[in-house]
């Protein structure tokens, strides 16, 4: 693909992904504020933005085989754990931004787990096998990720086991 369009589509993909995420959050807030139909609108449009982002991703050629996608996923998580978040955490400390330090800490701890899960999954797929898991449990407060069961208390943020969502 031509360099400029490649760069532009990457930026468009980032923008659509952010819109998708913002609208999902806005949807939840609208419901809390007592506007369920506005909430429905936000949720529906968040899905539309997901469609847009997916289209850009495919045109960019970044949706590949599962083995390759897992490799990209491992790379992405490792980048965040080893480079991005340590740097962001250092700046947040210098700027005494405590809430940002907390959201960064929550992200880093989960990304470490994701990197390992993706890496193990890649090894399995390379032998032609799916991973043998029953379910995945995510702490809705901090994103801590655990296979097959939820702990009584989240080891990263301390939220009770009731804060976990099962997939």
């Amino acid at each position, binding site marked *: 693909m031509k360099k400029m369009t490649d760069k532009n589509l990457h930026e468009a993909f980032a923008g659509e992904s952010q819109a998708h995420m913002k609208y999902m959050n806005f949807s939840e807030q609208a419901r809390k504020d007592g506007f369920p139909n506005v909430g429905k609108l936000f949720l529906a449009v968040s899905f539309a933005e997901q469609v847009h982002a997916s289209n850009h991703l495919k045109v960019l050629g970044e949706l590949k085989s599962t083995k390759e996608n897992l490799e990209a996923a491992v790379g992405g998580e490792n980048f965040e754990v080893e480079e991005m978040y340590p740097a962001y955490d250092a700046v947040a400390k210098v700027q005494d931004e405590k809430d940002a330090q907390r959201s960064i800490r929550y992200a880093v701890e989960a990304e470490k787990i994701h990197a390992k899960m993706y890496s193990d999954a890649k090894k399995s797929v390379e032998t032609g096998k799916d991973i043998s898991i029953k379910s995945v449990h995510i702490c*809705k407060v901090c994103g801590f990720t655990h296979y097959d069961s939820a702990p009584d208390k989240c080891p990263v943020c*301390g*939220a*009770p086991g009731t*804060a976990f969502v099962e997939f």
Partner: protein
Amino acid sequence: MKKFKCAVCGYVYDPARGDPEHGVKAGTSFDDLPKDWVCPECGSGKEMFEEI
């Protein structure tokens, strides 16, 4: 009256507002919240809250 912040998720309990969705009237101080009151956002207990 002082506000209290949940160390787990960042939710701020504001006594001026109370927690009406869970039966706590406006003007209720943090100390006067029931012992078994939990953070409406994440479910953590009162012990996870810090005065701010």
